[in-house]
């Protein structure tokens, strides 16, 4: 917190009634924003969810078409889908800051916005700590510090509850041996999974599983089917979207499919590094545990 406060330097501007301050975003850039932000635009559903969660949703004047949670977000004007934001709509809304996340790959668009004199704040969450950090940063940005810190704290308590529950139940050696080997299927055809750079890797491991693709490079690799077959997972997690309802055919003889150990997770929860990621963590932990029961 001390560090975050240190980033906040008061700089009164001559000839301008609105005071501005400098805040540092995840890319280490100093972004100049008004003392109190009243008009913000979010270009990512995860950011929209976080801003609502810290109680600043009423200060969003523009969001993306994918921003459907919480339901109130749907009433806010849409300025883009995350791939192609509409610069005219954004400028017309006269925002004091536009929030983007590196996950949306909007680096080129960022420049365009800055050329228009619009402050762009970039978040770069790569793991659960990043999500908590972003919550606190957003709290600072929107003057909701206390609420954001409380939320971050309660979320991190839920995470440690899940991880500790795992460790307390049986001796550490047994934990190592019994942890189920998990394959995370993002799409069926072509077969995409998660690799070492995905924040979901941490989710699976925290939930008590061993991710079989945790050493594969990149975040969302397209995996060789022969390797997938050879990995022979004990549990398969499906991102439950229309084209990904069932495990890929190569898994038909895997213990996961034979024992019906398939977990389906709402894709919105796991594709957005926001507060609901913890819901996904709890669901995966719960279902991994249920599956472990000897009656299965």
């Amino acid at each position, binding site marked *: 917190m001390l560090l975050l406060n240190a980033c906040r330097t008061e700089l009164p501007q001559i000839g301008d009634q609105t005071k501005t301050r400098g805040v540092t975003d995840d890319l280490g850039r100093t972004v100049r924003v008004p003392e109190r932000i009243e008009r913000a635009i979010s270009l990512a559903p995860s950011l929209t969810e976080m801003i609502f969660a810290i109680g600043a949703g009423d200060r969003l004047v523009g969001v993306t078409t*994918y921003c459907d949670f919480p339901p109130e977000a749907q009433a806010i004007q849409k300025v883009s889908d995350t791939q192609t934001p509409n610069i005219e709509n954004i400028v017309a809304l006269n925002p004091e800051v536009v929030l983007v996340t590196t996950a949306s790959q909007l680096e080129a668009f960022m420049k365009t916005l800055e050329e228009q004199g619009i402050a762009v704040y970039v978040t770069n969450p790569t793991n659960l700590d990043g999500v908590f950090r972003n919550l606190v940063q957003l709290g600072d940005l929107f003057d909701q510090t206390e609420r954001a810190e409380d939320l971050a704290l309660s979320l991190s308590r839920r995470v440690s509850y899940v991880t500790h529950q795992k460790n307390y139940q049986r001796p550490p050696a047994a934990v190592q041996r019994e942890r189920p080997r998990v394959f995370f299927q993002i*799409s069926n*055809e*072509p*077969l*995409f999974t998660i*690799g070492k750079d995905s924040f979901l890797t941490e989710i699976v491991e925290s939930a008590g599983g061993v991710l079989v693709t945790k050493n*594969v*490079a*990149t975040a969302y*690799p*397209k*995996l*060789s*089917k*022969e*390797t997938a*077959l*050879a990995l*022979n997972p004990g549990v398969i997690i499906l991102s439950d*979207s*229309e*084209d*990904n309802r069932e495990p890929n055919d*190569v898994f038909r*003889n895997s213990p996961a499919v034979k024992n019906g150990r398939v977990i389906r997770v709402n*894709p919105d929860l796991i594709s957005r590094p926001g507060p609901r990621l913890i819901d996904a963590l709890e669901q995966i932990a719960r279902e991994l545990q249920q599956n472990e029961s000897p009656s299965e």
Partner: protein
Amino acid sequence: MLRKTLDRRIKIAVFLLAALAAVVLLALAVGSERLSFFDLSEQHRAILFDIRLPRVLLGACVGASLSVAGAALQALLRNPLAEPYLLGVSNGAALGTMLAFVFFESYGFARPMFAFAGAGIATFAVYQMAKSRAGMNVERLVLSGVIVTTFLSSIIVLLTSLLDAAKLRSFTFWLLGDLSQATIDGFYFTLAAAVAGTIILSFQAKALNLMMIGERDAFDFGVEVGRVRIIVFAAASVLVGTTVAASGSVGYVGLIVPHLVRLAIGSDNRLVVPFSAVSGAIFVVLADTVARTAIAPRELPVGAITALIGAPLFIYLLKRS
């Protein structure tokens, strides 16, 4: 003299078939998983026969089909740049497959049928646009092909923009050419089309030889120019349609392979067509082996590899000739 060229051609044919066999065996031997062939476990058997074998065989069929279609179109249009892609055939097939995917979720027969229909409609549209009262000239045909190609591309881009994110992801991959969805059933279908197409086009080879001199000359020699043209277009549509449905758009194969074959054995289509089939199979199986193993256990799209090899090679050939 005649005997000497005949000997040489037989030698090349034998060499090509041996090379194809060697390349197929090599492709079966390597992959992201190391298999112990002398003592195959049940799992390794599944990898070899359910995953690797269908993919290698499908790759061979895709390469053969695209190369034969390219060779025939180049002869028909007397243009070495003629290629399924240039004429809009591939994009027609791609759009057809896409529509099948959107409206008929199944992977069954909807995809190849729609792809063939798309290829056929695109070819017909190009043909109609190119035809004028004065007959059809090659420039007009190629230009029509370019227009239809870009028009279809824009529809494909429009569709991918409208589709939701999950579908978009699989399509962008598929548009680059991807053999990872090979199944043994899909292979039979593509094999049937490849064999039928190669035979049909080989039978047109003599007529195509005459048409390469000029359509009027061919007509004077008794070639039914219009009929040959329709047969070639239809066969190319079937060949391209089935491959695109099975593997997306694998580029440059139909352009580069017939070129290399003509460099080696001359431009007699009776040889160029079947030799292109075998060479195309070798090329795509090799390219896909690279795609499967270069960054294993991850995979590259095979279309990126064929383009990576094909484009520079093509520029080199163009500069040299």
